[in-house]
């Protein structure tokens, strides 16, 4: 029987200039989903 692959830690973080302006009633999406 094969050993299951050993799980590794998952940790990452990304950063950008904060632009958050919205409230939950509306969102201005400037990028299109496919």
């Amino acid at each position, binding site marked *: 029987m094969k050993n299951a692959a050993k799980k590794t830690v*998952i940790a990452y973080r990304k950063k950008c200039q904060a632009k958050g*302006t919205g409230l939950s009633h509306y969102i201005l*999406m400037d990028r299109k989903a*496919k």
Partner: protein
Amino acid sequence: MARARSRKADPAGKSVRVDGAAPSRGRYVGTGNGPAWQPIDIGHPSYVALIEPDTAFWALVPREDLAELALGGRLVKAYRQKAAQFAREIHELRFGLKPSAVYFNPTERCNLNCSYCYIPEKMRRRGEHMSRDKLLEALAILKRYFQATLPKKTLPQIIFHGAEPLLNRDAVFAGVEQYAGDFHFGIQTNATLLDDAAIAFLRGHQVSVGISLDASTAAVADRTRRNWEGQGVYRQVVDAMERLKGYPGWSVISTVSSENLRQLSQLVDFLHEHEVPTCLMNILRCTLPRSRSVKPDDARAAKYFLGALDHAYALYRKTGRKLIVGNFANILLAIVAPAARRLMCDISPCGGGRCFFALAPGGEMFPCSEFIGLDSFRGGNLFSDDISAVLQSEPFQRVTGRTIERIEPCRHCAIRHFCGAPCPAEAHEMNGAMQKTGAFCEFYEEQVRYAFRLIADDKVDAYLWDGWDQGMQQTFAW
């Protein structure tokens, strides 16, 4: 000797630098200035989350390795190297942003009487319109203010909101025409007045359009969204959706209540089929007593909402086309790229009064649209008061000063910077004080757990728009 440095929240909720406060210099996990990890069970068979709440740092670790990884070793060391940077990032997000959007109510009136509306009925029935001249004057004042406060390349956002803004269409469209190029414009509408000419105008001026629809069938959608005569408006909204198809700048907002909860997956099918680029499935706000009559139980809300997200994922796998559920995407972003979040309800303090404010038809300024029916939260008037002074007024400070560190049980909660304890208006009105939780604590807990499961299963990209991390900097990678 190296000095231990870290950032902690002070009692007022402000993040402050702590230099060598404890003799152990942050050497031990869980004591002194050491990382205050909190492990949480995310409901995943292989992983648990380790979270350092103040810096919103997280790592998913194999269940069997939890103790070893949490108590020391490479992960702790790697975190320590970045802790101050992460603390600064969260501090900036919470306290360093300037207003760049206005939720502009050009009228108090609405042609609908939806069961969960937060604007008082008297206003919606017999309220006032802002005149065309006053609307143009307001935009002139806002333009001057933002020119003085925002970087040159940043266009502020004006979202015409309601009540129903298209009841005052001529004034709104005059404002869009006259100030095109000075603002990003958007409109949130119930879609009943979106005729061909209105759609052509909005598309031609690249105005983002949000329309409201709560379900995929008239039988369910019309339970909550009806006109004053009690007739549902489902058919008119679907007609507008057909005519908006192909326009990239539109979205659908659905309010999740006990009335449509069980049909959310069908709604996902419907929105996907209609090629809606983005939707929001917002849990209803319980600010006014009437809306609480359709408040769903937290656990049931989570069950059906997360089921709808599962369904959107399955559709994506089947068709290759995404339906982005924006409010959940925002929570996912809060975890993987905290500064990239766009909605500012799920952060503490919320964006009300600090990232945006709301303008009523008489020029009255409120921290957020949610407060427009609550007179004690009026901070001043755009036509007679200095905007900067209004932002510092006591009513605004009650909202901007509502930090998570002052709320029980949030100040101990591992996910406090992924949730933010929304919303202050409903905390104040429904639960009796600003320092109370909002109406849906458990619902947010479940969303965060779900988001971590997606991360564990490497599904994040499927829930965010293509290219979501373009231009971003990777600040931590294991």
